């Protein structure tokens, strides 16, 4: 993991929250993103495999969904989950070429919700390549790029 990779992950993710979700990073830094949050992963395959994990705090997700739908209030859980899957997909599709280059072709799988991301984060299958916390006035997002260690090492080598 390098500082520059984390910077790219943060900048790209923040930009997508801004452009797709009309959410500007703010000054709230008190919440823990993975406490009372909803998560989605986007698995990908290519020169190496991995997945992007996106977790949104419970206060942020309804706002993201309402902003994407263009409505003042959105209590529809199904649409909230759709919003999370869609923004995760867009972040993954933008982050991978920004970090690894446009010449590397990755195939993104369908984004899916994840009840508990802890086994993924603490397991041995993946290692964390980069992590970004984005704070908004109404909550926060955590974006984590995970890659398969062995495959990644051989691809880079």
């Amino acid at each position: 993991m390098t500082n520059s990779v984390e910077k790219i992950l943060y900048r790209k993710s923040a930009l997508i929250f801004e452009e797709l979700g009309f959410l500007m990073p703010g000054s709230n830094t008190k919440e823990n993103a993975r406490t009372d949050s909803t998560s989605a992963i986007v698995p990908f395959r290519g020169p190496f495999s991995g997945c992007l994990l996106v977790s949104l705090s419970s206060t942020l997700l309804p706002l993201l969904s309402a902003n994407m739908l263009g409505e003042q209030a959105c209590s529809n859980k199904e649409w909230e989950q759709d919003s999370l899957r869609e923004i995760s997909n867009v972040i993954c599709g933008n982050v991978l070429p920004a970090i690894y280059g446009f010449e590397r072709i990755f195939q993104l799988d369908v984004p899916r919700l994840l009840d508990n991301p802890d086994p993924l984060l603490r397991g041995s299958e993946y290692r964390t390549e980069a992590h970004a916390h984005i704070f908004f006035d109404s909550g926060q997002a955590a974006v984590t790029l995970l890659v398969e260690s062995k495959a990644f090492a051989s691809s880079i080598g």
Partner: protein
Amino acid sequence: MACVGRTHTLADMQGEGDMSFNILVVDDSAVMRAMIIRVLRLTGLSLGELYEASDGHEGLRVLDKNWVDLAFVDLNMPIMNGEEMIDYIRNGSAIADLPIIVVSTESNMERIESIRQKAVEFVHKPFTPEVLRKTVLQLTGVSDDELSRENSLSEIGPDF
């Protein structure tokens, strides 16, 4: 098809009485469909009927029953994906010349080029109202000047 023998040109839209675009948005994500429509409303373009479909097959059914000037199509969808839908339209259907804009996260230039060769434009997610407006005008051959002039005439009214 409802629009057999017709081509999608500026004259067609003028023939309908104004410069409104009837638009079909095809995406399996209801949120992304809403998002595209929301951003379209911010482009300043005059929008007519807005249709939605959640996959290529449903999109073709909408096209069969309605006059559509322009379609926004996602690539990765169940049942019939975006490329299959585009191929069906381009390969001899009555609406083979329908202007199509693919909206996707795809970043691979080779795949984007192969999609463009099907005579479609490509918009990368996320997108801005400016990008959508520019792409729509470019693809339909309508200039900003023509659009402003038509909109001004529409505001004055038909008796002027």
